């Protein structure tokens, strides 16, 4: 499969476009609200911004039903294994958005208690700057992620399409 | 117990030491009075008026400057009254009339006394709306110092530091009233060896250093206390880093050593640490020149080659630019792993190791303050040990009598009560006359009889017989109430000698002849060759003749620093295998088969011992450049490859081992240095007596007679590899010149500025100097144009036709 993905023929590109279209428009986030960013994430799902427009209003409580993990908030060292387990339990294909300064780099909490960037624990596809990023910032991240997926720029390293 | 007086500050009675200035006494009891011109180490002038306080007198309370006022019994002082507050606000508003508010641009911003005191004591708002003073800025007053006159608050600190402390009256105020400004004398740059101190002293950003300009800000600087490795005084320094690079070195007030002062070389040489020419990876000689190799390959090569020789066929030169721990590891490696006693940290340019390391009775630097007479027989202190020069100068200012003996004019002559001038090579003749108080030397002899005497003895130049210093030390020793300091100059040479990097010394100031200690050391090390090894000169001769086969160079450059550079060159070319631990490819390490990149000052931690035997902590402030490693870590790995565990991978372990096996260093553990000493270091031995005590006696030294004898003194800014690689001071390196007495010049015949050739190879201009005795010539060593000149006692000088 990896070979096909690298040298796509006509049929497979068309199929892949279709698959990507389907994936981008039904991306269900796993709720991983850890701190203040989570409030903005909830706001993004609510009426004023309405993530349902992009087919992703269903924040799933179970990682097994989710495609996208939005890490919203600072990740403490103690939370890191939990976060990794949730990520491992998600079914492929799956994507991770690191929302806000703390999740992306540790932000102003450059100390022993916090993971200095969630990409130390899970692979991150999209970083959304902000402290916290407003709903529109987060949506910009989501839309950019969708664009990237549609363009085929993001594939899972496991090789599973 | 000094006398105390009781004074009353702000309604609280305090007992303070008598004879102090009020501002100092108040600070000692916790009442800080703001100040600009006052500095503990400078004479009071009362210029800035910031320290005004109310003092009760016969006419009621009056405002008086506390920096010029001596405390007296029953003095009643108010530092916080409304009148004082108004005075302080007034002074600050007045100072800020002309001080520009360009703090965001100014390098002092963030650590500026004017900023801080305006915040704490200032009026908060200025009523001044007129234009401020306007100057051309900045003007370079020397190669290392810039002056922004509009920022100056005329506190006189720099002028006093240059005049009183350094003895270089090169800065002055001109004009009057509103037009006062500071300046140098026309066409006379502020070319003092101590100009950097004024940058540190300046309470505003008027004086800034060239190399720190706009480099970093005070709040992002990391601070590490360490000691300077430029000379053996080991001045305490604050090595300041920003983003993993050294950006500035400031002096720390260690009253037993440097009192906060530094020479410009101490202050500005650090940039060589980040030189692009540093060796950053192991270099192994290939078919065409050096090729980079991995550490493991290079070390395996070194281990297999060194293991293939008999112990006595290998020698090690150097280790004086390393910490005590590195030096100890080198001594242990060479003696117990390689099995060789051929070790020397001096390059034939020093003294008898017994004299240098174990002279008894040994003086301390602050003994100079208590001495009635100071006797200097040795190198020009201003050129070789500038901070010691400041200490001698201070002692003389406070009343000590200074007697200087040297073969040419030195920086100390101006303050010396008696100058004994001798023709280079004929020192022992003069010393004998002088010791017996012959005609012409009565005054000096009389001064020496008035104790206590501190004798500073060393080798005035490489061309002088090393026994001369011993002879002079013997004369000093014969005086009542006398103490001695020997004057070696290279970085941590005293630590290296104490760690056994000498052919006749074992670690801890033990003679190799001391069997009892040798046995103890053998138990600790597993193996120890007995007997005395070869000195550097002997090693080089044996290498050249083939009696020795391999050489370990540790930060040493014998081709530049040996008395006979030609011999060093031949020896290194003849050697079968040479491994160099060095930070640069030098004139010597270029002959090596393997160069291992060495971590240098600023990158290594440990301890170091200065010329009075004071052990201080050396702390790393940046990571080693590239793949450079400390000597002890590298030697530990090489020893492992040779099947021996040196236990030297960790510096603290080595320090503890030294404390255990080196008698003079008993008790000098990392914990002791950190917690028991007050941060200024401790003199070894801590308690008890060291096993070896060298008591100098008067010896006779042959007198050299020839047409022109050579005086070959060191210069502060030389053409050494460190000076060359420090951009700030590289341009200050001295140029070769031949100083001659006018009478000798007229016989050649040459005039001022003419070109002469020395030994038919070295050409340089002539300077006429009547401080040079007739029949002698003065050529600075290791400066631009004298590389390779042999330090023989006499030289052949010829005028070059058409050279002028």
């Amino acid at each position, binding site marked *: 499969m990896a070979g096909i993905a690298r040298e796509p023929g006509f049929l497979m590109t068309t199929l892949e476009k279709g698959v990507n279209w389907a994936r981008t428009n039904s991306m269900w986030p796993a709720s991983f609200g850890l701190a203040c960013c989570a409030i903005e994430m909830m706001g993004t799902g609510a*009426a*004023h*911004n309405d993530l349902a*427009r992009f087919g992703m209003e269903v924040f799933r409580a179970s990682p097994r039903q989710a495609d996208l993990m939005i890490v919203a908030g600072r990740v403490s060292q103690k939370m890191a294994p939990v976060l990794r387990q949730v990520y491992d339990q998600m079914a492929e294909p799956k994507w991770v958005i690191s929302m806000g*300064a703390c999740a*992306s*780099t540790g*932000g*102003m909490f*450059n100390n022993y208690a916090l993971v200095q*960037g969630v*990409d130390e624990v899970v692979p991150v*596809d*999209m*970083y959304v*700057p*902000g*402290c916290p*990023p407003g*709903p*529109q*910032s987060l*949506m*910009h*991240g989501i*839309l950019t992620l969708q664009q*990237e997926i549609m363009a085929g720029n993001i594939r899972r390293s496991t090789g599973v399409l | 117990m000094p006398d105390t007086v009781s004074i009353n500050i702000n309604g609280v009675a305090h007992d303070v030491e008598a004879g102090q200035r009020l501002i100092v006494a108040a600070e000692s009891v916790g009442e800080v009075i703001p100040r600009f011109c006052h500095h503990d180490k400078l004479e009071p002038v009362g210029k800035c008026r910031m320290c005004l306080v109310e003092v009760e007198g016969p006419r009621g309370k009056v405002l008086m400057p506390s920096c010029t006022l001596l405390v007296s019994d029953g003095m009643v002082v108010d530092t916080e009254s409304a009148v004082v507050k108004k005075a302080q606000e007034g002074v600050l508003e007045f100072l800020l009339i002309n001080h*520009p508010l*360009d703090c*965001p*641009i100014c390098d002092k911003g*963030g650590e500026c006394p004017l900023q801080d005191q305006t915040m704490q004591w200032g009026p908060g708002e200025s009523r001044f709306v007129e*234009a*401020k*003073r*306007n*100057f*051309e*800025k900045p*003007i*370079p*007053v*020397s*190669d290392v110092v810039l*002056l922004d*006159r*509009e920022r100056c608050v005329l506190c006189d600190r720099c002028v006093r530091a240059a005049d009183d402390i350094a003895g270089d009256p090169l800065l002055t105020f001109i*004009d009057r009233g509103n*037009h006062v*400004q500071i*300046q140098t004398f*026309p066409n006379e*740059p*502020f*070319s003092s060896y101590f100009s950097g101190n004024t940058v540190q002293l300046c309470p505003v950003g008027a004086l800034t250093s060239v190399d720190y300009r*706009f*480099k970093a*800000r005070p*709040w*992002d600087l990391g601070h590490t206390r360490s000691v300077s490795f430029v000379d053996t005084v080991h001045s305490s320094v604050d090595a300041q880093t920003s983003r993993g690079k050294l950006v500035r070195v400031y002096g720390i007030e260690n009253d037993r050593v440097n009192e906060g002062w530094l020479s410009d070389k101490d202050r500005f040489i650090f940039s060589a640490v980040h030189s692009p020419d540093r060796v950053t990876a192991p270099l192994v000689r290939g078919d065409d020149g050096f090729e980079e190799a991995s550490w493991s390959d290079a070390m395996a090569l070194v281990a297999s080659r060194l293991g293939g020789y008999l112990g006595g066929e290998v020698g090690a030169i150097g280790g004086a630019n390393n910490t005590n721990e590195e030096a100890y590891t080198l001594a242990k490696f060479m003696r117990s792993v390689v099995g060789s006693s051929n070790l020397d940290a001096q390059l034939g340019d020093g003294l008898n190791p017994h004299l240098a390391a174990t002279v008894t009775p040994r003086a301390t630097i602050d003994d100079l303050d208590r001495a009635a007479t100071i006797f200097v027989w040795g190198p020009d202190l201003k050129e070789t040990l500038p901070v010691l020069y400041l200490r001698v100068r201070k002692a003389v200012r406070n009343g000590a009598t200074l007697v200087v003996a040297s073969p040419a004019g030195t920086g100390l002559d101006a303050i010396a009560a008696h100058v004994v001038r001798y023709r280079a090579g004929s020192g022992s003749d003069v010393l004998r006359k002088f010791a017996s108080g012959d005609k012409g030397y009565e005054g000096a002899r009389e001064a020496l009889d008035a104790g206590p005497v501190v004798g500073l003895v060393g080798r005035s130049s490489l061309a002088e017989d090393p026994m001369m210093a011993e002879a002079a030390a013997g004369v000093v020793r014969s005086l009542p109430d006398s103490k001695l300091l020997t004057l070696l100059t290279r970085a941590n040479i005293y630590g290296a000698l104490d760690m056994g990097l000498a052919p006749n010394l074992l670690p801890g100031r033990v003679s190799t002849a001391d069997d009892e200690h040798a046995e103890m050391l053998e138990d600790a090390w597993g193996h120890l060759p007995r007997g005395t090894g070869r000195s550097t000169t002997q090693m080089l001769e044996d290498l050249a003749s083939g009696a020795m086969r391999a050489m370990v160079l540790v930060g040493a450059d014998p081709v530049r620093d040996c008395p006979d550079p030609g011999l060093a060159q031949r020896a290194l070319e003849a050697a079968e295998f040479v491994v160099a631990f060095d930070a640069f490819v030098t004139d010597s390490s270029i002959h090596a088969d393997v160069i291992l990149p060495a971590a240098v000052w600023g990158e290594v931690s440990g301890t170091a011992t200065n010329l009075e035997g004071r052990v201080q902590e050396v702390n790393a402030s940046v990571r080693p450049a590239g793949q450079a490693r400390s000597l002890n870590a590298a030697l530990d790995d090489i020893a492992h490859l040779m099947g021996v565990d040196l236990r030297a991978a960790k510096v603290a372990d080595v320090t503890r081992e030294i404390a255990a096996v080196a008698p003079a260093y008993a008790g000098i553990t990392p914990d002791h240095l950190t917690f028991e000493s007050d941060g200024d270091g401790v003199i070894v031995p801590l308690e008890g007596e060291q096993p070896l005590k060298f008591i100098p006696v008067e010896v006779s030294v042959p007198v050299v007679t020839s047409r022109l004898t050579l005086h070959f003194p060191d210069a502060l800014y030389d053409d050494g590899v460190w000076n060359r690689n420090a951009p700030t001071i590289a341009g200050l390196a001295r140029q070769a010149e031949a100083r001659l007495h006018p009478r000798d010049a007229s016989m050649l015949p040459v005039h001022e500025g003419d070109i002469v050739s020395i030994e038919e190879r070295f050409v340089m201009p002539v300077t006429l100097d009547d401080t040079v005795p007739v029949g002698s010539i003065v050529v600075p060593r290791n400066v631009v144009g004298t590389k390779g000149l042999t330090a023989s006692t006499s030289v052949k000088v010829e005028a070059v036709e058409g050279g002028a």
Partner: protein
Amino acid sequence: MTWISDLLGPFKGFAVTMRQVGKPRVTRKYPQEKRVKPPRFHGRHVLNRYEDGMEKCIGCELCAGVCPANCIYVRGADNPPDNPVSPGERYGFVYEINMLRCIYCAMCVEACPTEAITMTHLFEMSVTSKEDAIYTKDELLVDPDGTPNHPQAESPLIDVKELRLGDGWMRATSSAGRAEYEGVVAWTPQARNPDLPVEAGQSAESTGGDDG
């Protein structure tokens, strides 16, 4: 009687939905339409210029010093006298902000003595790679006409004209951020007043510093 209310339950639920039909919708159709930000919204930073095109930043590192997240890296350098980058002696030679570490607190804006750094309404900075989130001086510095640069300016999601909407523009052009001074330059970073004659005294040539 509970079965009747049970039976009506679903209809009550649908009634809630039906009541909303016909009411105006509150959902903003981002990205087609954007919410109008409050004037003091803290978006990403820009480095401003004076009217004559000179950079306002003098490289004083106060912003870096005050930054609680340590996300700003500034290095100053000597201003080349023949082609000055900013007025005065010093200019910002390196200026980088890690937008991912930044917490948009605007302490840098408050600390800046020359109003060189201000915040805009730009908020769309999502990146797929961490390195792209480090904005260098090229991206932070506005064009001479005041238009900010953006690393993804051609993206349909970006509207660079937003800069002028907020108080960032006002702050950039007025002293102390007061609206009534908009466009009035009150601070000059020049330590020396170019209109005044230079006081007599030593000059760089007569110190002999260069040949000493």
